[in-house]
């Protein structure tokens, strides 16, 4: 049983990327004759490529890009292994090779068991088809036979809670129902090896919990092997037996999830001077929205990696938008150095009339974290830009680190405590006051071992027993 169920040996994958030499900052305009000449040259090259059946690449200069380089690891039967790493580290390429979507350039993989891969929830769902039809369609796509699907049909429907809508086209489903149905089908796969990518980043919190729970029980009860890629660092830490950290197509480290996550966050904190700026070529995003910079500073001063808690902290995001984009959510996750998220905030959390209009071109928005909120410690900013309920555009982990020094204490005792005696992710000074019933208890007109919570809305008092006698 301790045999490896997955063996990956020296796996490499090369992509060819084309660059156009004409593009770039130096050329202000392009002459038609240059374009024509270049096109003619390209056309001749492409024609040869087509003829020989080679991969055709746009652009003048072809550059090799190794998405994976000599990756080797083993996974034992029944293990849950998490793969983490920055965007572009090669995680998705690895999963694509393992699920046979793309071929490796070099190396090999041995899989000793039936594999199911779940790179997306609801792959191949057709909006015009009914829920019932989509169960059969999606099941077949995920590799179930029609007999298996028929056998599990009722279970799938019950788990997804869509009985009443079985014969409704899924285009009329709410997004929650859609995701529940899609996940339910996937959850009823019975592979020995399950490969999962980012699916947990979709859907609402309840769905995430449900899917995490399902994955956990499935792995434990049926001795199933799970390999999953996630940005959800606390989930990786709580669920996985082991984690693998990838960077630039190579394994940086692997081992206990806690230490691997620490290492990842430490590595991600490459920028701690309070500012992270991208060039246009490397900026995360898509053709419509690109994130150009993230910075933190306190009270209008210069960006800085060390801030005091007695001043407001500003997190500023610079991004370029093209055209009008509806329901664009711009925000970030604030996490601590263990990967625990304190808060996820978007500009669209505000009342709609206060939403910032997305301007075509450069936008610079800032979010104020009020003074006296954060505890001492290291914090990480992970920008999140997406179109509401549609897709993520930017999902970068821990691009910026800053340290907070506890300065907002107003009590001499607070100041006397060492940092270690100030636990907690946040340290707001909360209000304390005496209960209005305190004097009545002291005078004996109220029984001391029962507490009056106070008059509720209809004026009556509610008694709550707080004694140990119950």
């Amino acid at each position: 049983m301790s045999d490896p169920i997955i063996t990956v040996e020296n796996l490499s994958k090369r992509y060819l990327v084309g660059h156009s030499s004409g593009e770039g900052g130096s050329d202000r305009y392009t002459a038609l004759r240059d374009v024509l000449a270049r096109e003619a040259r390209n056309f001749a090259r492409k024609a040869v490529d087509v003829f020989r059946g080679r991969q055709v690449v746009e652009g003048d200069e072809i550059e090799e890009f190794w998405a994976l380089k000599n990756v080797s690891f083993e996974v034992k039967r029944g293990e849950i292994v998490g793969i983490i790493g920055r965007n572009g580290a090669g995680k998705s390429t690895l999963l694509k090779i393992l699920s046979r979507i793309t071929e490796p350039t070099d190396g090999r993989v041995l899989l000793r068991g039936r594999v199911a891969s779940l790179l997306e929830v609801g792959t191949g769902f057709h909006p015009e088809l009914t829920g019932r039809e989509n169960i059969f369609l999606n099941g077949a796509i995920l590799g179930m036979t029609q007999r298996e699907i028929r056998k599990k049909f009722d279970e799938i429907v019950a788990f997804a809670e869509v009985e009443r809508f079985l014969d409704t086209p899924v285009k009329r489903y709410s997004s929650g129902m859609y995701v529940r149905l899609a996940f339910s089908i996937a959850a009823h796969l019975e592979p020995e090896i399950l490969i999962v990518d980012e699916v947990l980043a979709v859907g609402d919190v309840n769905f995430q919990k449900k899917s995490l729970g399902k994955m956990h029980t499935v792995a434990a009860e049926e001795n199933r092997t799970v390999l999953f890629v996630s940005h959800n660092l606390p989930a990786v830490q709580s669920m996985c037996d082991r984690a693998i950290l990838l960077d630039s197509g190579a394994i940086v480290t692997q081992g206990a999830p806690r230490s691997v996550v620490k290492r990842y966050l430490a590595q991600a904190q490459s920028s701690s001077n309070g500012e992270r700026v991208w060039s246009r070529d490397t900026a995360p995003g898509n053709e419509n929205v690109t994130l150009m910079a993230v910075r933190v500073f306190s009270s209008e001063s210069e960006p800085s990696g060390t801030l005091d808690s007695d001043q407001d902290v500003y997190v500023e995001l610079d991004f370029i938008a093209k055209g009008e984009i509806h329901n664009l959510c711009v925000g970030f996750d604030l996490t601590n150095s263990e990967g625990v998220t304190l808060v996820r905030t978007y500009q669209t959390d505000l009342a709609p009339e206060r939403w910032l209009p997305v301007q075509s071109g450069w936008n610079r928005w800032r979010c104020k974290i009020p003074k006296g909120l954060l505890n001492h410690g290291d914090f990480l900013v992970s920008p999140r830009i997406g179109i509401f309920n549609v897709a993520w555009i930017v999902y970068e982990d821990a691009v910026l680190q800053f340290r907070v020094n506890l300065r907002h204490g107003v009590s001499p005792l607070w100041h006397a405590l060492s940092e270690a005696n100030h636990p907690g992710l946040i340290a707001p000074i909360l209000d304390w006051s005496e209960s209005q019933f305190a004097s009545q208890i002291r005078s004996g007109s109220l029984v001391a071992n029962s507490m009056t919570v106070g008059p509720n809305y209809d004026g009556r008092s509610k008694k709550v027993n707080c004694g140990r006698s119950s």
Partner: protein
Amino acid sequence: MPDLMIIEPGRRERHYWSDLWRYRELFRVLAWRDLSVRYKQTVIGVLWALIRPVLTVLVFTIIFGRIAQLPTDGTAPYALMVFAGMLPWTFFSNGLSEASNSVINSGSLITKVYFPRLIVPTATVVVAFVDFLINFCMLLLLMVWYQFMPDWRILVLPAFILLAFCASIGPGLWMTALNVKYRDFRYIIPFIVQFGLYVSPVGFSSSVVPEQWRLLYSLNPMVGVIDGFRWCILGGQSELYPAGLAISVGVIGFFLWFGIHRFRKMEKSFADLI
């Protein structure tokens, strides 16, 4: 060990055909999906399959039969002859154009799940085949209208249907592969189909082509298919030209091999290109 799977470069090639067989169920499901999406809630779906060929037959009968006074095959009504040619042509052109867009249209599938990619374009040809069957019923009605009785030759028709299928899937696969690489290629396909309609003997009988050119004309694979259809449907009224048919079959065979070959060469990189 229950099942051991090895992934390494070039490995996929070796199990290609057995893999294809293992995924036959997916083929069935995808074909069924395309069909039910097409005919769902649209009565127009069925009508649409009928309207285009019927109108074309009408126009061709008027232009070539009445105005240009071209001869028909034997004593068969001109409209019937045109319809017998229109049938395989519609099948071919629908199959070709739908297959060539199929892989791009199911891009989300291709980048997320593994299965032999050959399934996708082949499954779409099934839809074209159902359109073909609808049209065939129309032809039967037309034959009743003209009180035209087919003879034993109609039993050979399935062989020519298979030939029409091969004729559309061969170039279809090649174009599918090209379409993935060159997205602007899809603008060329309607042109090819349009052009093909006029260089194929759809609106006229291939007997109007001068004798010395007929062999050359048969290099167009649809010439053999259409002639074959007419021979089967119109009974003794249409003659088969064996040398031309042999050439057409040869060309179809070559394109079938070539299409599959090119498709297999390029399908490995589909997921990287889409």
